[in-house]
């Protein structure tokens, strides 16, 4: 099976004031591949993810998604999903309300269909019957799962995970890492995990890319 390159990062540079965070950074990711970016804090991992999403403009270089340069595409149109380090479930909506925000209305016409999709994915992440739960009542692990599910529902080309597991305790963490990996593999979704934990990276990724301070 020939692998298709989904993401190409070519010589990107990003600096804040005098601080060069990214210096001619290059990376290629294949479709369906799960990679881990491993490195100490401050090495530019998070900045790289933010550049991929389009929250930060790069100073030079190219980011190509499925062959297209996405320099002028705003974050909301890049079709990239991201699970943030901190909890970003919207407190004014319940679990179902959060999940529904992830489903595009163009593809799924009726509300009932969308609700069904949301319930299905709750089953896949092991949170059957959580639809009406208040997000504030979720445990750390449950919240991470719901966020992952919300991101998956938006059918992104690629999912970025910014240290999503770092705040969890170890047993819960390993189970969640395995479950997440299995789910991504089943759905054949490309993913980039940012972490500073080697064990986490080995458990999750097909390939580990080391980053160091520039």
């Amino acid at each position, binding site marked *: 099976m020939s692998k298709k390159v989904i993401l190409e990062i070519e010589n990107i540079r990003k600096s804040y004031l005098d601080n060069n965070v990214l210096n001619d950074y290059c990376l290629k990711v294949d479709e369906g591949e799960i990679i881990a970016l491993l490195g100490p804090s401050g090495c530019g991992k998070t900045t790289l993810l933010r550049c991929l*999403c389009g*929250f930060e403009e790069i100073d030079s270089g190219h980011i190509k998604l499925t062959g297209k340069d996405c320099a002028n595409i*705003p*974050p*909301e*149109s890049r079709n*990239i*999903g*991201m699970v*943030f*380090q*901190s*909890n*970003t479930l*919207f*407190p*004014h*909506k319940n679990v179902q309300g959060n999940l*529904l*925000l*992830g*489903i*595009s*209305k*163009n593809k799924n016409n009726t509300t009932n269909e969308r609700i069904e999709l949301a319930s299905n994915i709750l089953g896949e992440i092991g949170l059957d019957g959580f639809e009406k739960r*208040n997000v*504030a009542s979720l445990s750390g692990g449950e919240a991470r799962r719901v*966020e992952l599910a*919300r*991101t998956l529902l*938006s059918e*992104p080309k690629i999912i970025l995970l910014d240290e999503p597991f770092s705040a969890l305790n170890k047993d819960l963490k390993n189970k969640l890492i395995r479950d997440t990996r299995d789910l991504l593999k089943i759905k054949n979704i490309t993913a980039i995990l940012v972490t500073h934990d080697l064990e986490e990276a080995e458990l999750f990724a097909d390939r580990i890319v080391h980053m160091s301070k520039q």
Partner: protein
Amino acid sequence: MRKGALLLHVAPTLLFSFLVFFPLYLGFTRLITVAELSPFAAIWQIDSRPSGIGAITFTFIEASISTILTILLGIPIAWTLARDNWPGRIYLRAIFTMPFVMPSIIAAVGFLALIGTDGPLYPLGIDLRQQSGIIGKISDATGWENPGHFIALIAAHIWFNLALTIRFLEPPLSNLNPNIEESIKLLPGGNNIFSRMKNLWLPLLSPNIAAASVMTFIFSFTSFALVRWLTPSSFTLERLMAEHGGAAGIPDYGMGDAQIVLGSATIQLITIMISLILLNWLQKRNGAAMPFALSKGQKRQIPYREMSFASILKTFYFISILIFVLAPLIAVFRSSFRMRVRTGDVGFTQQWTLEGWSSLSTLSWNQTTITEALFNSLGYAALTLLIAVPLGIIFANNIHLSDEIAKIAKTRRKRLFWKYWARGNDFLVMFPLAISAVLIGLGVSLGLLNTWPSLSQRWWFPAIGHILIATPFVVRSILPAIRSLNPDYSKAAALLGLGPIERMFKITLPLLSGPIVVASSLALAISLGEFGATWVVLRNGASSTLPVHIDSLFSKPGFDPLVTPTAMAGASVLMAITLILYVMVEKYRPDGAGGEF
């Protein structure tokens, strides 16, 4: 709880309830006796009197329009102040929120000076006084008489209340965890600006928008000095109550007046209660904990970019608002140097003069000069400071403690008791602010003075109203600071052997020194600017306050050309003192504080 602590908990509540509700109760029973009608039946009498015709409609319409426009104009300011890293941002915010502490009489005469023929708008073709120019066309097209005065009133209400929108909306906008906003951009439910508005901003901001709207509505609804001077032909219920209040307490004589006042007071109380309940409900409904940024490092502010279309638009908007905020104040100051002088064959012209300022301490009115009125005002302000600030601190502390006790209470009953005790106290201290100054003043004059007339001779008597109105501001400034105080400081001090009183004076109060300066300055400013409550109470001329004195000077027949510049000079002095106090507030305002006043 020990006896001393219990006393400290119960005594302020009892005292404050007594000061707020007892005069109101006496006043209402008196009104009902004189009016010979029930409060609800009295409502129907308002429209039967020439001055009352249309007052109810006018009050609701001007308050609604003021509220909507204030919010719409304020949101872009709050948004930009919170999210753009502009140079001089904090100074801009200080200027934009300054009108809120300005005495209402200053706003009234400031806008009057703006719209006069000698003001800056008239040469620009915006004739808000008469029916010429743009305003004349509006008037011709709609058949609406003197729309300029109504426009000026709405503008003054916006000017006054803009601070509320900014203060309530800026914190959630600037403190929101930026990841929340970023994550919604990556989801289909937030991939354009409208869906983000619908799914994120409106629900997140709605409690604060509701709070700002309700407060703006209440302040515009109970507007008195501004209505009295800017739309002299129209009556808000507040103005009706103030101007009919005198006769309303006399049996067999003031029945008609009592009916008007009783009806107005009833509508006003009901409206304000409904507003407050609505606000509480809205905030509860949407009141999920705000996902605030954990640290400053997480905040991301958009760097200021020169020459982009958006930044030019923003700059233009900000400069317009800046002019809008400063113009009435500059107009007051300028008018203090302008006097009409007889010239030529017919009529007068306005000329520059220093006579307004030189007659500040000589032109007297009922034996009181402006300088004397200023010293009276400063005396009341000092008394207000001495009582309202400690009282407010005790209240804030009690509310916080009750909340804490409720959290650790072992039984449901205890928990509920302390929770409601905290909420009840919170409501109680805010009550005087909500029910309006005139209603407080009427409670005092119809209630207390009818029962104990000699009270009017006590020099400290007028300060009661000031204290009631200033205390809510003290509590609002202190409570958030007390809540965010790390309880470990007090615990550590206790382990070091300090008793509760020592802990209060050596640890807690010094830690709160910033907010206390803020609260004190606010209390002084509120007392100095108080108008409605003082105006309706029978006054000893020798103890007249500066805002009331300025009002009297403007009411004086203006045959003597010296009256206006002198009154404007007095207003400039009041304005300058308030500005100094406001600088103190801003200087010591804790960083990131907001959502209060």
